[in-house]
């Protein structure tokens, strides 16, 4: 904080909490002190789909292909599930997919 200087330990903790909300992600429920660019993160907030199966328990009938679902796990999180392994076996899996919302069709299946 710029105008308040913490001088005991409790105040330091409040100051730290404040700087976390300033510099880090802001949850949707919180109202920032002034309008600023809002960058939500986390699978449930952005154009990252959940893990889905179709009515039959498979992936063929989904409204969008399963490859689209796993794109972000591949790029940012390396979620430890069955996504393409970009560290070891499929380093180029997403090389044709610059923007997931537009290019997801270019993601292909990986056959181990």
């Amino acid at each position, binding site marked *: *904080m*710029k*105008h*308040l*200087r*913490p*001088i*005991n*330990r*409790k*105040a330091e*903790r*409040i100051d730290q909490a*404040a700087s976390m909300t300033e510099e880090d992600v802001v949850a949707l429920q919180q*109202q*920032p*002190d*002034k*309008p600023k660019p809002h960058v939500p993160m986390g699978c449930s907030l952005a154009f990252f789909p959940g893990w889905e199966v179709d009515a039959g328990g498979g992936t063929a009938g989904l409204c969008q292909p399963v490859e689209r679902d796993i794109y972000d796990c591949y790029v940012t999180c390396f979620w430890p599930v069955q996504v393409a392994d970009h560290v070891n076996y499929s380093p180029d899996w997403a090389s044709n997919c610059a923007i997931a919302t537009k290019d997801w069709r270019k993601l292909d299946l990986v056959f181990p």
Partner: protein
Amino acid sequence: MTSMTSMAQARYRRGELHEFQAADQEFIYLVTAGAIFALDDGASAVLRSLAEREMSHAELVDALVEHGHDRGDAEELIGELRYVRGIVSDAETPVAAPQPTSPPADFPLQALVLNITNQCNLACTYCYEFGADKIATPDGKPKYMTLETATASVDFLLTQSAGRQAVHITFFGGETLMNFKLLRQVVEYAREKAASQGRGIGFSLTTNATLLTDEIIEFLADNEIGVTVSMDGPPDLQDLRRVDKRGRGTYRIIEPKLRKLIARHNSRAITARVTLTDGVTDVVRIYRHLKDDLGFDEVGFAPVTNNGDQAYALDDKGMDGVVAEFHTLADEWLEYALRGERHGFSNVSETIGELIQGANKSHPCGAGIGLLGVSPSGDLSPCHRFTDADTHTLGHISSGVDTAKREDFLARGHVSAKYECQTCWARPLCAGGCHHEAFVRYGDTGHANLHYCDWIRQWTDTCLRIYGAVSAQNPQFLERLAERKALS
């Protein structure tokens, strides 16, 4: 969108805070947190404006812009003050101000006070255990704690303090040293038992010093046992009320023993604890005698506990004199701190220690939470002051804590259960004051100690100003003090 609308409609007022100045700076003590912040000019200006009237967000921004801030900076300043609840507004989502929560029911014990005897060789006229205001009912109960009860207590402490690396035992009485034989056995037993679990254990005792011998002093020094001596000052004051059963003063008996104790015992601080009564109010003179003449490390003062009608009680005039003398010593404490030296006036040191942490207490002390008292018979009580009082037993060492009784005691004593405290800015540290004092005065451990409120606020303000000045001019001193408190 709701956020913008509500922000435009918000009318700000000052949050719960106490402002103070020190070393030409402005500070706020935030009551819902116990936090202390130094303010810059802009922040002080906002609080000054809001002291006069409530203001809308736009008004406040305009006022700050007029004051020389740019608009973005003004928004940021308001944001910071809102964040710490230095300013509040009803238009915001009404979030209740956080109340200190109660510790969990299985809060691990940290310390036991063992009343190893309820007998005393003196007859101090103001004694809370034997005097007019006594609540103890020792008739028909054991006068001395047995080794069996004592070892059971040690086992109880070690079992109930799971997860703590170190625990503490305080020996108390009666006159503690009337059962020195047991004290020695307990220290040996507890040391061994704690060591076998790879844990530490510390000891301290309170005594009137009349029974100190060379052998006892050796033992206390060798075993690093902290010693607090109850005494009231130089001969004329000590002998006024701290008398034996024939009414004779005790100064000449204890003086040579104290000099030996202080000369030999360097492994722990030796503290004097003074009870202020009618006629015993020369705080500075008492301090000088105990600190400079006798050589105590620390001296602490407290007005006598009483029901308000006792002849030995301090009246308002006496109390005013005490407060004035406290301030003299407090000024001296500050001078020492700015030079980086330790002063022995523990009333200031204790409060500063709590201010460093930013304590925000649910209860005035650890009684019934991390601390319990054990009477000679093995009855548990919230602390040593309730020993042998049938009205306040919290179980027995053999059967453990009576959880229902403890819950009742803690529910009464919780700061949010004390009506008068809700509007007091000093509640984070005071939390209503001593449970025992409240019971003696008002018949209820959960009653706020209203007879001290003005005094506590004045004293807390004094300590805050000391804190502010030291934080501005010699902050390293506070860090060292915090480290020392963590060790003690």
